[in-house]
């Protein structure tokens, strides 16, 4: 439906780009500051100040979600809204929708930060927001889709430049991922249970997690790269043909690679192998794109010396190439065994985030600001200084985390000649990394300092100039030509296809969900029992405190894992885990076999101050669990919600959950009393102990012997 006959002047809406650029930079500073605080806490545990909402388990999700949705998200919107209008030669579809999108998105981010600090979380990585925020995200995402597709539909150029293809694939896929992963049953205003449990939840979550990285942090930025890089060097992309190939190959392959996050877990092995193979295939399109970007710089390399914009783009492409080689390598099962749960993963994502994303965002910001405010960049010198501080900080960060990851991975796997663990005490493998955690903290803080310089530079640029909305005359455009009715109809196929796809997907989900819910209603193994009311409340506290950020609950299928933690985890053990808590990082040891390993008293003292039981531990203390009483107001709603999801609670429990709760709590209180500890049965620590003591204790009778 390209509106080719309607030539004339067109005023672009660049307010959108200005607003989203500001949001990108300011949230970026917030997100990076939280990241620096989290990094400091790993090197120096008291840095949470004893405050619950500043503790690592709560602020790490704030950091990651801020970087993904606020920093990268707003940057995508800024770059997309700026370039889309130029590529379509059309003002954005609706000024109102643009404003709604902007303010809606910022409100979502603010609400996310506040609720996560308060411990309202789904406990699923990069999808921590609770259901009301998830709904808001879906609504605002649709608003954006209407705005984008509306602009494309009314475009004055027939050809859809490759960047637009990247934008379209990104926004459609993210919509699907977001909906599928966040399907949940609300049991309170900010509490819900995922409709998936255990292995199924893990699979859906990492299908989401992997593709959210793919379609929010990769494809839209490739779109931005294909527009902004040629503009910055004032040369067309090296090979347009390659860019088309890059696009189609990447989107067809990416979606299948998710299971590489679950190697050696209880996920069926064929699914693991599928994920690994597709991950390796991904090298080809990724490097095709990187090479295309770098070769676009042909004949312009001398400009890199002067031009901060190009410096950042070269940094971005280099790290895109590195991260997209490293990712597939880490997906190889044997290497993944070493790297997974260690800081190597942290190095990998920060190479991508600080190098690729940061490079693209800051390059774009320095190029855009002079255009958006119709002036020169305030200081190239300052921008170049930003580049060097950021690059050195990034290298310190990544190399320290590489070293930490490989060191710890090797220590975990090291055995003596007798076949025993060389470092049986997990803590020993953590304390070896503390100097590296300091280096990481310094590197990250340098990167943050560079970003502050950028904000200052853009602020001064904006102040020196005037906000302008560019007006272009498209009457001389070569593409403007009268069209037949039939040709116009054909042009509509594209938005129609997109809308049909969304419709089909929603239909598909509605069809699939009941069928799959039926399956979970049939417990196949009798060994697994539902969490008691007390254990369930304890589990919700575990999720609230974000324990999964540092502890896994998955003993992998490898003999050295079993040597350290006990028998490997089985799929049926997670049958009633709504939501799953396998984790992705072991800053502390795996907890799946911790149940009954220590007495209640040990857990009591450990949560009060981990150093009482584990001298030198870097885990924060959780004193508030010893003051706060468990909020049982939602208990009945929680049990009802889980019953709907197929958890077979006994009628006696459903009728009087508080009685069941008190009965079990009193036993723990009595056990502690025998050791001279006075506690009441309504304290959070009691529920927490009950949950931890349940973990991994229910193995099928025929397997319990080996």
């Amino acid at each position: 439906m390209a509106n080719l006959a309607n030539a004339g002047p067109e005023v672009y809406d660049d307010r959108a780009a200005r607003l989203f650029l500001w949001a990108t930079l300011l949230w970026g500073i917030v997100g990076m500051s939280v990241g620096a605080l989290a990094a400091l806490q790993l090197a120096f545990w008291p840095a949470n100040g004893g405050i619950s909402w500043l503790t690592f388990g709560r602020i790490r999700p704030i950091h990651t979600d801020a970087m993904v949705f606020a920093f990268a998200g707003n940057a995508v919107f800024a770059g997309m809204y700026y370039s889309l209008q130029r590529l379509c030669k059309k003002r954005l579809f609706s000024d109102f929708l643009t404003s709604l999108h902007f303010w809606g998105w910022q409100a979502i981010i603010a609400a996310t930060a506040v609720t996560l600090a308060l411990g309202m979380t789904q406990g699923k990585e990069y999808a921590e927001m609770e259901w009301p925020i998830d709904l808001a995200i879906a609504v605002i995402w649709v608003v954006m889709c209407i705005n984008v597709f509306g602009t494309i539909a009314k475009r004055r150029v027939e050809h859809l430049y490759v960047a637009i293809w990247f934008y379209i694939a990104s926004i459609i896929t993210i919509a699907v991922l977001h909906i599928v992963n966040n399907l949940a049953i609300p049991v309170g205003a900010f509490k819900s249970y995922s409709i998936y449990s255990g292995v199924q939840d893990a699979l859906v979550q990492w299908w989401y997690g992997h593709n959210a990285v793919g379609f929010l942090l990769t494809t839209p930025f490739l779109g931005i790269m294909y527009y902004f890089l040629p503009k910055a060097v004032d040369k067309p992309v090296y090979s347009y043909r390659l860019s088309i190939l890059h696009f189609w190959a990447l989107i067809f392959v990416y979606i299948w690679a998710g299971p590489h996050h679950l190697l050696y877990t209880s996920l069926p092995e064929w699914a693991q192998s599928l994920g690994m193979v597709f991950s390796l295939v991904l090298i080809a399109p990724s490097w095709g794109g990187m090479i295309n970007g770098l070769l676009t710089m042909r004949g312009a390399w001398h400009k890199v010396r002067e031009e901060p914009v190009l410096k950042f783009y070269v940094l971005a492409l280099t790290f895109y190439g590195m991260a997209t080689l490293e990712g597939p390598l880490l997906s190889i099962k044997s290497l993944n065994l070493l790297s997974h749960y260690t800081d190597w993963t942290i190095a990998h994502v920060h190479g991508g985030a600080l190098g690729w994303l940061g490079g693209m965002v800051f390059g774009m910001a320095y190029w855009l600001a002079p255009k958006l405010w119709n002036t020169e960049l305030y200081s190239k010198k300052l921008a170049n200084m930003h580049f060097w501080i950021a690059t050195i900080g990034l290298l310190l960060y990544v190399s320290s985390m590489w070293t930490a990851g490989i060191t710890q991975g090797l220590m975990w796997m090291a055995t003596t000649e007798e076949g025993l663990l060389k470092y049986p005490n997990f803590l020993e493998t953590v304390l070896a990394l503390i100097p590296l955690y300091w280096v990481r903290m310094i590197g990250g803080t340098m990167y943050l300092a560079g970003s502050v310089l950028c904000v200052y530079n853009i602020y001064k640029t904006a102040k020196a100039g005037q906000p302008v909305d560019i007006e272009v005359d498209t009457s001389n455009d070569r593409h403007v030509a009268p069209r037949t009715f039939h040709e116009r109809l054909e042009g509509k196929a594209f938005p129609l296809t997109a809308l049909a796809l969304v419709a089909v997907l929603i239909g598909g989900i509605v069809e699939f969900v009941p069928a799959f819910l039926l399956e979970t209603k049939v417990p196949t193994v009798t060994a697994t029992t539902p969490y008691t009311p007390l254990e369930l409340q304890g589990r919700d506290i575990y999720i609230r405190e974000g324990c999964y950020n540092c502890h896994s609950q998955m003993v992998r299928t490898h003999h050295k894992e079993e040597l350290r933690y006990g028998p490997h985890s089985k799929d049926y053990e997670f049958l009633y885990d709504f939501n799953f808590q396998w984790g992705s990082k072991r800053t502390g040891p795996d907890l799946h076999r911790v149940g009954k390993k220590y007495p209640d008293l040990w857990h009591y003292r450990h949560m009060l101050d981990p150093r009482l039981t584990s001298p030198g531990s870097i885990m924060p203390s959780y004193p508030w669990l010893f003051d706060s009483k468990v909020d049982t107001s939602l208990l009945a709603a929680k049990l009802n919600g889980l019953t709907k999801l197929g958890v077979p609670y006994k009628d006696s429990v459903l009728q009087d959950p508080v009685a069941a709760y008190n009965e079990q709590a009193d036993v723990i209180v009595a056990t502690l009393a025998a050791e001279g500890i006075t506690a009441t049965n309504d304290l959070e620590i009691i529920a927490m102990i009950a949950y931890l003591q349940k973990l991994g204790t229910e193995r099928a009778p025929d397997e319990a012997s080996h």
Partner: protein
Amino acid sequence: MIVIFMLIGISFILGAGALVSFIWAAKSGQFDDLERPAEEILFDDFFGRS
């Protein structure tokens, strides 16, 4: 593990959507000219005023 088939189903639908888009794009001439579109984005900004 019906969820695996659900995800595979959704991934296939996404893939099919991409395939339909690709066929549409190829048929409607989006990829007929692989030189000019790359050049054109460099010239569209400031036809009116700079």
